[in-house]
């Protein structure tokens, strides 16, 4: 059910309920009937109070959380892949070439330096080594990560620095769909401005962005549309 040629993500009737077996099987319904679509070149913001399920929804689109009902169609080249029904290999392939994700928490891999972390992300996306490295270095510089930190593993960085590594990792590749979960949360004014610029740049390049932003100012500057997720509260 493709709406237009520019639709990149189509969410239809998606529902999610957590069953906590450790609490005697208590069911925690989160979302139901979530439907919306996102087009190339636009930034759609997921709105709503804390705990309503915005992060959860983003994770479902990324294939990190399971989907209990409905479908999430993602454009992959000339065809569509339903994340709800995709095999693990399909999801991994999507993540490599289509879906990018800037998470709230940086899962650090021991021993790999910050520059390498970002470079790997670019290489996974298909860039060849030298270009990947150059792009990674550029992003780190623009996010004001001092060069002396580039060889160090981010595990020892401050929260804000880690967040900037996360952002660099998400933006260094050229995924057609980019999911952003509170990308500016621990950042100061300057770095926030840098991220806003990245987002604008990607929009101009035709990327479809879906984001969660707490900062009203940032939201205003990047959002093309807002979707109130509390409409879909289960």
């Amino acid at each position, binding site marked *: 059910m493709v709406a237009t040629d520019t639709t990149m993500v189509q969410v239809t009737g998606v529902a999610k309920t957590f069953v906590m*077996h450790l609490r005697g099987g208590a069911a925690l319904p989160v979302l139901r009937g979530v439907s919306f679509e996102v087009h190339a070149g636009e930034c759609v913001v997921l709105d709503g109070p804390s705990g309503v399920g915005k992060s959860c929804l983003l*994770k479902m689109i990324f*294939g990190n959380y*399971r989907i209990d009902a409905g479908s999430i169609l993602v454009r992959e080249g000339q065809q569509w892949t339903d994340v709800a029904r995709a095999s*693990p*290999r399909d999801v991994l392939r999507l993540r490599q070439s289509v879906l990018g994700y800037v998470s709230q928490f940086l*899962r650090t891999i021991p*021993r790999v330096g910050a520059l390498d972390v970002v470079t790997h992300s670019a290489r996974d996306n298909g860039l060849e080594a030298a270009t990947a490295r150059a792009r990674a270095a550029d992003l780190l510089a623009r996010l004001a990560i001092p060069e002396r930190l580039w060889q160090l593993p981010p595990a020892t960085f401050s929260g804000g620095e880690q967040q900037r590594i996360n952002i660099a990792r998400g933006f260094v590749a050229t995924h057609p769909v980019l999911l952003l979960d509170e990308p500016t949360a621990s950042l100061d004014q300057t770095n926030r401005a840098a991220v806003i610029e990245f987002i604008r740049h990607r929009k101009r390049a035709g990327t479809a962005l879906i984001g969660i932003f707490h900062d009203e100012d940032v939201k205003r500057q990047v959002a093309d549309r807002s979707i109130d997720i509390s409409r879909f509260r289960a």
Partner: protein
Amino acid sequence: MSGGEGALLTAAGLTKLYGARIGCMDVSLELHAGEVLAVVGESGSGKSTLLALLATQLRPTRGRIRYRMRDGVVRDLFALAEAERRFLLRTDWGFVHQDARLGLRMGVSAGGNVGERLMAVGWRNYGRIRGEALDWLTRVEIDGERIDDLPTTFSGGMRQRLQIAKNMVTAPRLVFMDEPTGGLDVSVQARLLDLMRGLVADHALAVVIVTHDLAVARLLSHRLLVMRHGRVIETGLTDQVLDDPREPYTQLLVSADLRG
């Protein structure tokens, strides 16, 4: 993911019974080149039995395993002649043991250990064998100066890396690992895991890794198989199974993991 071709390894209905006792029951899985599959579970879950079956160290009571050979032909592993199987084990496959003493010849030098597979497949030039051994020692971050030293003089982490070099020298396409980080210090584990990630990425290795450590599974694997009492409880994308576990046992396992 490198795909396009069929699966590298396909297991169907693998079952191992010891009389009435279940080693593992009805396990089916598929593995493609460049994929890392982690098999997790507690002691007695059957994960080591499954690994032994997949690596044809044990014969299944029921079930089949098919493998795509280097020439592209898919063969039933238990229908292979013993000689063919051993050749496979020595060239196209690798096996990294938890205890390095099982995977190394402790009385043979590091260089001799790494060169053994090459000599087994007919390499007859000492200089070239030694050169290749030195190359791989360097790649697993073992100082080349240690090439003539015995593994008994190596630390635990070094022995594991030597095991890896020993296996990798014939460019295997499939590597089995049995708790490779068991008993190692955390920093040593980190180094080993990082090495493995690099090798998987650089050589499009397919890996089946048995571990009780969820952090290792999360770091290395694309997909996960959770086992309990010989059965597969849950399977899927690693981050999905660990972040959104569905089965009660999986939820228990994930919640019990100290590092989260």
